[in-house]
């Protein structure tokens, strides 16, 4: 069901330059959407804009790419315990997790 995005007008190119358009190589079956800006927008409802939390939920803006990806991968595999993240992380492919981390860490 994967469809292609064709970009038209160029005056928004800067804001649209995200991993979404890097293609869908992914990590096997159902690689799916790799749009980092859109994927990472799922995270901000708990972790705050830019990963800087306004409340009791942890800020994640100080984590580097390796730290964040390691945590997400561990939540996904079950190696890391938590309240809610063990139910969230497995919903993303490895390639999507990497796109999220790239977006949130500015890589």
């Amino acid at each position: 069901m994967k469809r292609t995005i064709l970009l038209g007008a160029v005056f928004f190119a800067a804001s649209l330059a995200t991993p979404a358009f890097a293609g869908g190589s992914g990590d096997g079956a159902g690689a799916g959407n790799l749009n980092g800006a859109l994927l990472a927008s799922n995270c901000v409802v708990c972790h705050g804009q830019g990963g800087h939390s306004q409340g009791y939920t942890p800020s994640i803006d100080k984590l580097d790419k390796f730290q964040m990806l390691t945590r997400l991968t561990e939540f996904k595999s079950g190696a890391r315990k938590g309240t809610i993240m063990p139910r969230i992380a497995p919903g993303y492919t490895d390639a999507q997790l990497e796109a999220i981390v790239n977006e949130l860490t500015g890589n």
Partner: protein
Amino acid sequence: MSNNKSNNTSRRDFLKIAGATGAVSAFAVSGCAMGPSGTGPRVVVVGGGFGGSTAARYIKKFGPDFRVTLIEPGRNYVTCPFSNAYLGGIVDLNTITHGYGGLAKAGVHVVHDLVTGLDGANKTITLSSGKTVEYDRLIVSPGIDFKWDLGYDEAASLLAPHAYKAGSQTVLLKKQLEAMDDGGTVIIAPPGNPFRCPPGPYERASMIAYYLKHHKPRSKVLILDRKDKFSKQGAFMEGWKRRYGSLIEWVPAKDVGNITSVDAGARTISTEMDTHKAGVLNFIPNQKAGKVAHVMGLTNGCDWCPVDQITFESSVVPGVHVIGDAAVVKGMPKSGNAANSQAKVCAWAVVQLLSGASEVEPAVTSNTCYSLVSDDYGIHVSVIWKGTPEGYEKTSGGVAPANQSDDFRKQEAKYAHGWYANITHDIWG
């Protein structure tokens, strides 16, 4: 596509002036001194709740040069999420009330007005002030309206509040709880499916129980349901037992029987078998898409708005997108977080389409919902979905596991507050 007299007048005025001046912005036409910033395509968003406010903000985020106008009659928005915590006395009204200054600062042109008509062919909407607004794409987030029935109508809601649109109704319910004698019964009658915020009535029972336990310990909460099961049921019932013993009683529809009438003045609910008398009656009516969706002709004569599952474009009127509680989105609940997620996916799609894309890739999106059982006891449900043309397929998620420690539940309660602070900052901050 309603066309009342004032619409026609506005349209005529518009054509007259537009004809004389050539290509002018809708706001120059309508006489507004200020218009939306930018020089890009014009996106108009109707409705300043979770869906609409998010959409307006994220159009500006994904397409900074887009001209974005948000039309919302209210000056402030009181959120349904955490309105139950207000009933419990855990947060104040100010905490759950948000203005539109943050959106204005983000470059959204906020107009406080009410939509009275849609002309989908000419891509214009008319407002109660008589103004006409042009759009390149329109995003509508109408929320819900009630199906008044069983003798319960808007006038009745002033006696026995539904409190299912937050604001004055929520304040009225809290005042009634405070005025009730110790030993009284609070009856909550949740709606039938589908309805806004599936765990909402049960979190409400929890928060009212929290208030009663501390202030009126001889009182109880009776839930007379129109369903035989409910969202997060196991987790709620475990929490009720742990925090409130037998203070909350839930009666499934099969034991309630058919509700035949509601007497808001007498605070009674009658069924085929019985009449239940309440100290405080919280009757929550069955629901349909918000009024503006019907006025704009987006429901196809039904209760809710059919949409393309990937772009949220209306199946009824091309160029118009519908998001949030009012839209039929297969696989997703009607929740504030789902509206926020749909708005982001829709904003992305709209920016793509107005930038020349012919198709939009399905999104991976999410819903995180916390409910407070007590001040120190939270429970979550979280889902990740991947979009398909047929709806949203769950890729992971579920309800908080059973039989966890008090520390775990306390952590979840803190995260519930964190979620609220961050999602409202994401939207209105």
